[in-house]
């Protein structure tokens, strides 16, 4: 906590692109933050290699104008995240710079060298103490709480506090800024530490104070193909690789909107700025059905889009994860979505190239897969000291080169995630959205939910499995049909094929632009699956292939009309009845 050492200083001796060679005096840490003073500005950078009295520093900004001999200040700290009330509703760049404030100060563009304080120093928060004078505490223990929008924000003993301590004083309930002292804690050596409502933590180290337990609870997303067929666990991990245009970002946005969860951190990492703008402008308007507040109240957005400096792209993912972990420590269920981890991996590649490291596959550094594992392993369910649990679910979009899943980033990701939602060009070309390909995707959580879930869950999983078998059979028949033609297959096969297509059309596909169909809660999904089961089980026979196709098209059309009908709509029951009647009209026995 206390560093007596004076920070090192240095000067630029060589520069190429974003990589500076700095000659320094003093003590320098690997990954220490540095500031380069040039043209009256201070440019943030990070030490990435040290050799003798030379340090290699990668700069997070445009480096134009830097000249030989420019002064370099070493900060003494690693790249840290400021944690405290006010993170939700915020929009940060990859270095936790608050973008809205930057805009107020600097206008349309993002000038380099402008670093503002992430959390407001003037906003007041209503603090209620829970700890008492004399309590023995250790790091991450709760001292009190403040209400922050939808969550109860716990004020914790700083994570950097080592050993056990005694609460010497604690502030009474009242309104405080985050800089005001709310407690004093005396450590084992008798040193008193002032505690405020915010703290700093190095982004690349996980926050994990508690016991990790197996994720067994489902995270519902209101997206049928995920919840019904390839579910995700709270505290689990998933990835959504797909070629461009397959709808990765739309899917991620859907999840960030409709996931049944308390806190969401969206990291827009090296992707289009326009997509973030949709979140920025829509989330303050959209209602969060779970709390009745606005979606932005539960969301923190980290935005380091593709034209923003590449080096900060690497840190953006860690900053987002650290913020989500911080909330998990309060017993909150959090979701971190990164779009896209491939851009993050490319940032690693660029840095590795500049350091002239020996390249691995497709010039990615050899440590790529260990970095990816490290990141996804930060997800998980934590059992906290007070027996409550908090979870962090991580979902990463992957943008494989050429849409080819064999490439290193996709492969390294698949090795560590619990659920794979593979998007395919074929499905998006055929306008089958979400373009998650049911024939290649998988989830390791299904069996776990079946084991730990209730009767309804088991029933739902059972139907989905049955439907999945039909889908595979239908695919086989479809392939055969493309070789031998429709007349080359039997009537039974034709019916199986149409049943598979039916399941795909009415359940797996979902219209994100219909205000009802866009989000289906889990109860309605169960109802829909039960209806699908009736169709799959029905003993149907037809005079001709054409008749079969006509019947299924009509039935499908009716189910889709029902899907588009809100549950509280008077027509809801009627439309379902129509479907069942149509089905009965054709069933034997």
């Amino acid at each position, binding site marked *: 906590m206390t560093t007596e050492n004076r920070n090192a200083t240095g000067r630029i001796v060589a520069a190429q692109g974003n990589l500076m060679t700095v000659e320094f005096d003093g003590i320098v840490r690997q990954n220490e933050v540095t500031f380069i003073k040039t043209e009256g500005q201070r440019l943030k950078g990070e030490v990435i290699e040290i050799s003798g009295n030379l340090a290699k520093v990668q700069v997070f900004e445009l480096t134009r104008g830097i000249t030989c001999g420019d002064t370099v200040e070493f900060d003494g700290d690693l790249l840290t995240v400021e944690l405290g009330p006010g993170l939700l509703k915020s929009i940060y760049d990859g270095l936790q710079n608050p*973008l809205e404030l930057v805009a107020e100060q600097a206008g349309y563009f993002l000038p380099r060298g402008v670093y503002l304080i992430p959390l407001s120093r003037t906003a007041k928060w209503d603090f209620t103490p829970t700890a008492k004078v004399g309590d023995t505490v250790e790091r991450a223990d709760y001292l009190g709480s403040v209400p922050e929008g939808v969550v109860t924000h716990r004020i914790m003993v700083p994570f950097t506090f080592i050993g056990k301590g005694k609460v010497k004083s604690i502030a009474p309930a009242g309104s405080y800024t985050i800089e005001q002292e709310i407690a004093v804690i005396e450590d084992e050596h008798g040193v008193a530490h002032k505690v405020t409502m915010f703290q700093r933590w190095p982004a690349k180290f996980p926050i994990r104070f508690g016991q990790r337990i197996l994720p067994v609870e489902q995270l519902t997303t209101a997206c049928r193909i995920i919840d019904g067929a390839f579910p995700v666990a709270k505290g689990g991990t998933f990835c959504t690789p797909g070629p461009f245009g397959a709808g990765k970002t739309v899917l991620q946005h859907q999840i960030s909107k409709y996931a049944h969860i308390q806190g969401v951190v969206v990291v827009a990492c090296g992707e*289009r700025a326009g997509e973030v703008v949709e979140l920025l402008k829509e989330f303050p308007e959209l209602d969060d059905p779970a709390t009745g507040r606005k979606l932005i109240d539960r969301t923190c957005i980290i935005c380091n889009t593709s*034209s923003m400096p590449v080096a900060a792209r690497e840190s953006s993912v860690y900053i987002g994860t650290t913020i989500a972990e911080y909330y998990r420590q309060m017993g909150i269920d959090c979701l971190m979505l990164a779009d896209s981890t491939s851009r993050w991996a*490319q940032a690693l590649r660029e840095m590795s*190239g500049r350091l002239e490291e020996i390249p691995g596959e497709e010039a990615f550094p050899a440590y790529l897969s260990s970095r990816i594992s490290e990141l996804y392993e930060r997800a998980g369910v934590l059992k906290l000291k007070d027996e409550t649990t908090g979870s962090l679910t991580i979902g990463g979009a992957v943008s494989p*080169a050429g849409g080819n899943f064999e490439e290193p980033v996709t492969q390294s990701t698949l090795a560590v995630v619990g659920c794979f939602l593979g998007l395919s060009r074929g499905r998006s070309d055929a306008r089958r959205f979400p373009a998650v390909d049911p024939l290649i995707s998988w989830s390791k959580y299904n069996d776990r939910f079946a084991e730990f879930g209730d009767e309804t869950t088991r029933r739902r999983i059972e139907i989905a499995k049955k439907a999945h078998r039909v889908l595979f059979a239908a695919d086989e028949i479809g392939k055969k049909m493309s070789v031998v*033609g429709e007349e080359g297959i039997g009537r039974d096969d034709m019916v199986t094929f149409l049943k598979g297509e039916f399941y795909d059309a009415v359940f797996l596909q979902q219209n994100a632009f219909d205000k009802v169909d866009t989000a289906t809660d889990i109860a309605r999904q169960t109802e829909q699956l039960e209806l699908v089961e009736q169709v799959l089980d029905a003993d149907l026979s037809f005079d001709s292939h054409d008749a079969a196709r006509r019947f299924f098209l009509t039935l499908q059309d009716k189910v*889709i009309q029902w899907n588009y009908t809100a549950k509280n709509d008077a027509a809801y029951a009627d439309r379902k009845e129509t479907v069942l009647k149509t089905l009965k009209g054709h069933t034997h026995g």
Partner: protein
Amino acid sequence: MVKTYNRIEKIKGSIAQIRAEGVKLGELAQVKMRDGRSSLAEVISFDGDKVTLQIYTGTKGVSTGDSIRFLGKPMQVACGDALLGRVFNGSGVPMDSGPEVMSEKVEIGGPSFNPTKRIIPKRMIKTNIPLIDMFNSLVRSQKIPIFSIPGEPYNELLARIASQTDADIIILGGMGLKFDDYAFFHQYFSKTGAMEKTTMFIHLASDPVVECLLVPDMALAVAEKFAVQNKNVLCLLTDMTAFSDSLKEISISMEKVPSNRGYPGSLYSDLAARYEKAVDIEGSGSITIIAVTTMPGNDVTHPVPDNTGYITEGQFYLHGGVINPFGSLSRLKQQVMGKVTRKDHSDLANAMIRLYADAKKARDRESMGFRLSNWDQKLLAYARKFETRMMDLEVNLDIEQQLDLGWTILAECFDRHEVGLKAEWITKYGKWKGKAA
């Protein structure tokens, strides 16, 4: 202050190295050659007093004794109304017979736009081309490439879109352009009267490779200046594959580790830095970018189209002289379809594409000699109508007419329950005769 250096120590590719002090990264220098030519050069790295310069016009004929003078500023481009109707090369030197422009200058490759200051784009750009307006609507501030192959009429399409839209300013960035193509643009814009609001930055195929890299930066810096002055700018960039190849050439000659097929690992970021200049500014103008990306070997997984696809907001595939409805995509279309345009727009367009996809399969079955079902026959008839009446690039219709034509074609080919459209739309806009069953 101004010091001249007369000793070049190393010359390689487009790179020259000298010993100098106090120079800045990105600073410009003037190289005066012994044969009287002169060129701009840029500091790309330094190691102590060893300074590496990239010479814009290449190192052909550069001697170890040429004089180099540092200018103390980075590359800049003149901007403003004085540029309209004018043509410049990649270094910003006039290519037409006009004088040098002395107006206000801005640095190229400036900082990126603050995302919180962007607005959700929702102003449609009408082109009167059905495959664009109806199926993949173009929206102001969009960045979208035309994926094509050499020989296709992509430059003609670009020129037609440019002259049929209502942009305030058109900026053409030509990279690796054949002289004939440059002449075509010049003639076309002069003929349609668009030249008065057009500025061109042209790198011809035979020009030095470094200038090719500068073209998009020059074009976009000028565009940005116009956009913050409340102008709607349409920026045409053709061909971004030539730009990427220049990046490759220079990065290889600088001995950087290539990542994929010789392209630098930074290709994605390099392309994104340019495309992301597209913007709709709250309370001011906009920049829309339509680019051309020729796909080597018609391979969309080639690094250039592949990286581009991840950056841009969709793409148009131009193939066989028509815009291919499969794969072509405008990511911003949802912002205008059914919101700015008629309510049925989105569902109708999706249904028509879905049916056309089915028709393709039916056509495969037909070509393999299978007996066709009634449904197949319907699909085939539909495909023929769709192709001749909507896909053809000659079709020039207003969006309302396009939608009505869509419903007419559906009614001619299918029964109303076969098209998978909401009953509400069918009743309101469908062209079927008689009441619903």
